[in-house]
């Protein structure tokens, strides 16, 4: 019966997909004349169920339908590691970490704060214990917040790759690889512009099967042009071309490839993939609404907004 796993959850997700914003909804929002009108359209959609839930509610619902699905947790690793960065900085600078904590997350804030304060990392999930210890040691020794952030970001991607392999999920392996590639290209580009050292890049770049770490670092050390040439010869020549053109276009490409991955699960009737795809789609929808809202607030024209809109799942 393993082949019919999560039939119940997939049924619920298929019904919920009807409430995701579609192309006509986005067109309507883009054509809205002001932020107030955007808010009014979204509010009216909320009445019919669309966008009524934030990501935390969507996550809670997915866990309710598939409480035993461990691979779903990989989707929150980025939030977990972000929260680790936030808590480290907050503790060191005597601030309240609550302000920087984002949810949903696999690790509750008190657990994270307690682990960092006591330096007892055993209460943290296995995938972030070593990172927490290394990052704390690094930031207290060097006082270099950027370096410890880079370490945490790279370790988050490594943890995602490792867990995806452990749970044997091809979908999540692809998801982790795509996130890694997107992050690595961006990191390498920034490092090349800022003339960061090979040692810094060694910490900041994660590496994946699709984009080899050493080769990427070597290219980035040669400067931005050298990096673009390297990317042009790789599977990600289009990403390199977009990054050369504009970072906004590159960011859009990063989000769009994730939605393209999610689309591969649209035809599946069973398994965890449709649940993961729905979460990715919801993340993209929320991002689209944020972009739209900001664009409207700053009076951007329709063409600019349309250009910035991410691909839709439905």
């Amino acid at each position, binding site marked *: 019966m393993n082949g019919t796993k999560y*039939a119940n959850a997939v*049924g619920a997700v298929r*019904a919920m997909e*009807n409430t995701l914003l579609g192309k006509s909804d986005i067109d309507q929002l883009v054509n809205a004349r002001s932020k107030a009108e955007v808010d009014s359209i979204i509010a009216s959609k909320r009445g019919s169920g669309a966008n009524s839930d934030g990501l935390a509610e969507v996550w809670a619902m997915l866990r309710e339908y598939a409480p035993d699905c461990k691979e779903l947790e990989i989707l929150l690793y980025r939030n977990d590691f972000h929260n680790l960065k936030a808590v480290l900085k907050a503790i060191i600078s005597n601030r309240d970490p609550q302000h920087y904590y984002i949810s949903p997350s696999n690790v509750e804030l008190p657990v994270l704060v307690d682990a960092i304060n006591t330096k007892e990392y055993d209460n943290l999930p296995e995938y972030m214990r070593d990172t927490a210890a290394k990052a704390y040691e690094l930031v207290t020794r060097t006082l270099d917040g950027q370096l410890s952030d880079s370490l945490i970001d790279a370790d988050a991607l490594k943890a995602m790759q490792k867990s995806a392999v452990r749970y044997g999920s091809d979908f999540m392996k692809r998801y982790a690889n795509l996130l890694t590639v997107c992050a690595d290209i961006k990191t390498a580009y920034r490092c090349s512009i800022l003339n960061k050292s090979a040692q810094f890049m060694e910490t900041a770049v994660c590496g994946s099967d699709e984009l080899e770490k050493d080769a990427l670092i070597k290219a980035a050390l040669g400067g931005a042009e050298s990096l673009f040439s390297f990317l042009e010869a790789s599977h990600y020549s289009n990403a390199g071309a977009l990054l050369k053109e504009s970072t906004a276009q590159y960011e859009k490409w990063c989000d769009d490839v994730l939605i393209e991955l999610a689309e591969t699960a649209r035809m599946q009737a069973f398994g965890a993939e449709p649940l993961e795809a729905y979460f990715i789609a919801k993340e993209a929808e929320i991002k689209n609404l944020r972009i739209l809202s900001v664009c409207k607030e700053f009076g951007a024209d329709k063409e600019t907004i349309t250009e910035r809109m991410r691909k839709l799942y439905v």
Partner: protein
Amino acid sequence: MDNLGIVLAVIGAALAALLAGIGSAKGVGIVGEAAAGVVSVDPSKFSKVLILQLLPGTQGLYGLLTAIILLSRIGLIGGSAADLTTAQGLQFLVASLPIAVVGLISGIVQGKTAAAGVGITAKKPDHNGKGIIMAAMVETYAILALLISILIIYNIAL
């Protein structure tokens, strides 16, 4: 063993009801899970997904029908038990196998197909019929197996 013939025939009847019934139970269960997921979000789709859930239930009925016909033919229902030879008993046992085996497998497979059809109903309720047709195609093979089982049962010389 004197009564081996009748024992084999009864085993055949039991297998027809048992295996086809298991197939249906699993199939209906799979669709039920998917349907419950949809209904938990959108209760208005209950009637549409219910049709899909009923589809894998027929294999169990075919198994039951075959078992009743077989028991009736050997006189265990509505008459006195026939004095069957071992060869005759074995023929009745073999006669029950098509619906028993095909009922088991097609019930589960139809359940999976109908559960996928529940996805169609959830996303595009107007295309519900297509999901029903796809699931109903699996039914063909259960019907063929039922037909063969009944034909064999009626043509065993007593």
